[in-house]
């Protein structure tokens, strides 16, 4: 599966003979080892969900949030090295408030994604910095409507209808592709995201997990909010039922 770039992988400022920068690819592997994070764009907003693998039973449920609000209208879900993620979120918040001060309006989501991607890319240019070991799913709702972006450790940023990163990303992407997102509301989307996360969670390899979801949609008045507790519980219950039905087959 993995190709070893012996000799060409010691520094992020070295290309291999076949044109790859191995350090960036290794950074991406750090993301692949983390819990699944998915985001979908429904017709009236964005829903993001995180499979938080619980390291210890002593952790307080509802703490250690993985989805962060960047500005009133946008949020980021981070996968990979948590400390690196904290840095990127801090930078994104700073970019957003700076844009608001200079230009007098909330930062367009496209502009925010470009700035985050640019910052992540920056750290792949110097030998004395290491690349960020995290992937980011950025969802926001501005005057051009709801938008979803994904930023990889290489600094690439694309706009998506649906995106997944982390352990179960392949399985999650397959599930997302089956959904008819353009006809779905965010309420329905919450149930779908919960179902997908429960489905891709590997019972054998990983122990318990906690599902965390946030959305930004018309129902939340175009502001980034945690999915309301009652809706979250309903979706978890529906997801568990769906799993059992599948297992029963």
């Amino acid at each position: 599966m993995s190709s070893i770039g012996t000799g060409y992988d010691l520094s992020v400022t070295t290309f291999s003979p076949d044109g790859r920068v191995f350090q960036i690819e290794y950074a991406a592997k750090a993301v692949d080892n983390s819990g699944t994070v998915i985001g979908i764009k429904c017709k009236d907003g964005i829903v993001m969900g995180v499979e938080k693998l619980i390291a210890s039973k002593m952790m307080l449920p509802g703490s250690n949030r993985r989805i962060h609000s960047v500005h009133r209208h946008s949020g980021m879900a981070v996968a990979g090295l948590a400390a690196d993620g904290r840095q990127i979120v801090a930078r994104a918040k700073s970019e957003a408030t700076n844009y608001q001060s200079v230009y007098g309006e909330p930062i367009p989501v496209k502009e925010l994604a470009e700035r985050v991607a640019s910052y992540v890319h920056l750290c792949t240019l110097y030998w004395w910095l290491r690349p960020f070991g995290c992937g980011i799913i950025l969802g926001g709702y501005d005057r051009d409507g709801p938008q979803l972006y994904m930023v990889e450790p290489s600094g690439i940023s694309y706009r998506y209808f649906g995106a997944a990163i982390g352990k179960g990303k392949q399985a999650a992407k397959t599930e997302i592709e089956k959904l008819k997102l353009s006809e779905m509301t965010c309420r329905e989307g919450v149930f779908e995201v919960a179902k997908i996360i429960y489905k891709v969670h590997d019972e054998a390899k990983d122990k318990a997990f906690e599902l965390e979801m946030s959305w930004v949609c018309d129902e939340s008045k175009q502001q980034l909010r945690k999915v309301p507790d009652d809706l979250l519980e309903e979706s978890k219950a529906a997801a568990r039922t769906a799993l059992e039905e599948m297992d029963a087959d």
Partner: protein
Amino acid sequence: MDLNMNVNAPHSMGTTIIGVTYNGGVVLGADSRTSTGMYVANRASDKITQLTDNVYVCRSGSAADSQIVSDYVRYFLHQHTIQVGQPATVKVAANLIRLLSYSNKNMLQTGLIVGGWDKYEGGKIYGIPLGGTLIEQPFAIGGSGSSYLYGFLDQAWKEGMTKDEAERLVVKAVSLAIARDGASGGVVRTVIINSEGVTRNFYPGDKLQLWHDELEPQNSLLDILNAPPSPEPMNI
């Protein structure tokens, strides 16, 4: 007449400037007098300056200060447009002007009216008077001549005017101010900005409507003096 006129005094635009929203866009208007003290340095100046394709600014106060601020903001907006990939909004232009005006309030003496059209908010007018407040208004007036227009516009401005009604209102207002304010004069320039684009119009001073004391006197004793001379006596 004061023969000791200081023609090297700082150029100031006495000015009347006005910006008005209508149903579908904005109309900006201004006079054209630039004075250095009592001397009219330029009787046909253009006080309505372009910032972007869809946003213009009316300048009043110190000519130098308002030009420098406009130049900086035009430069910033140009970069912003490239970065964001679409035309700047009127609000962004107004905010940039405000940041410069407020940060340099001790050194600048210029009142500006930013007006334009963008696809999100439609036609908008923002007033940025001395000191650097930013205020969004359905119509805004500025300059020394504006003192004479507060009452007039309070009565005459209506919501949802057509383009022609709005332009007529602007021309009427500027010409009223020119009639009363010694520091305003010359021609009336207007700029109309809407979804279709920008239109510049020009109204020469002698084509403007006459007001009150400027009208020809009627039934005045002067008529006797101006009456045709009595017929020649007949020569028999």
